[in-house]
């Protein structure tokens, strides 16, 4: 069993394959009592592997340990948003979209434009969002999708941006009402009633207090300029 601290939650978690060994290493911590234990039996991993033979057992372990963590996260005033999160000027901006739309491409453009130290990718695919001390925080986690871009840090949430491809670059602020179905498509929807209530109550807080945008963008420096100028938190 490994001891990790992810999103300020103490995890006692079993894994043995390369991806988790590598990505988990940055989150190792020492503690007496875990808040959450993730112990997926080998037989279950093998069963899921049989159902998805195109994936390796390593991938299966990575996907299902992540799914277990994000389900547990609901119990800690938190949830996962399928998005690429970039940290700029001390805030995390989350770009959310279906796979293949270009959210990682867009945040990589930020890194190219501002420099990698001025625009860090906190998590390229599945950042955790938590409400603590009445404030919304974005956390890096070991589960960052196909890339290993994630950083063990917490940063205040700056904005949530729903990204789509477009010939021209534009940003539009949207109402929570418009964002609800978009968020619901980009998180893990719990099946159990009590967990769904936790998710919806969390979304109630998040969508009422954070700025929400739609971004249409192409792949250019101008895309970064329009996006950054349109969504950045004014101090």
């Amino acid at each position, binding site marked *: 069993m490994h001891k990790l601290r992810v999103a300020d939650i103490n995890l006692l978690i079993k894994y043995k394959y390369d991806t988790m060994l590598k990505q988990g290493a940055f989150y190792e911590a020492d503690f007496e009592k875990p808040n959450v234990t993730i112990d997926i039996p080998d037989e279950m991993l093998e069963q899921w592997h049989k159902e998805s033979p195109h994936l390796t057992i390593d991938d299966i372990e990575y996907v299902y340990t992540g799914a277990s963590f994000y389900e547990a996260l609901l119990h800690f005033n938190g949830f996962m948003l399928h998005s690429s999160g970039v940290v700029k000027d001390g805030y995390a901006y989350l770009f959310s979209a279906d796979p293949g739309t270009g959210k990682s491409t867009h945040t990589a453009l930020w890194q190219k434009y501002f420099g990698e130290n001025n625009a860090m990718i906190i998590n390229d695919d599945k950042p955790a969002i938590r409400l603590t001390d009445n404030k919304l925080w974005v956390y890096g986690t070991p589960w960052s999708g196909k890339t290993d871009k994630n950083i063990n840090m917490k940063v205040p949430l700056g904005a949530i941006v729903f990204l789509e491809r477009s010939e021209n670059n534009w940003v539009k602020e949207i109402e*929570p009402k418009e964002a*609800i*179905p978009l968020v619901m498509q980009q998180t893990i929807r719990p099946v159990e*009633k009590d967990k*769904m209530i936790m998710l*919806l109550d969390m979304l*109630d807080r998040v969508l009422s207090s954070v700025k929400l945008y739609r971004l249409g963008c192409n792949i250019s420096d101008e895309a970064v300029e329009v996006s950054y100028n349109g969504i950045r938190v004014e101090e």
Partner: protein
Amino acid sequence: MKIKDGYLLREVAGSNIVVPIGEGAMDFSGVITLNDVGAFIWKNMEEDITKDELVRKILAEYDVDEETAKKDVEEYVSSLKGADLIAD
């Protein structure tokens, strides 16, 4: 008549939304949004109720005439039926 099991109504950031839970959550990934009257009717239909009782509840809750309340109930019940959300 009553709403089928397997749905959860909750207010999120000022909107009344309905999402499927349990087995239904697997095949329907959408979100239903209701206005205030719609949410009121939905809540009252979580237990078995008749159309007449619904109309009386609306009249007690909202400042509307009976004709409007009847029309609201007819409209909502028929759209809920159309969406296959009512267990008879």
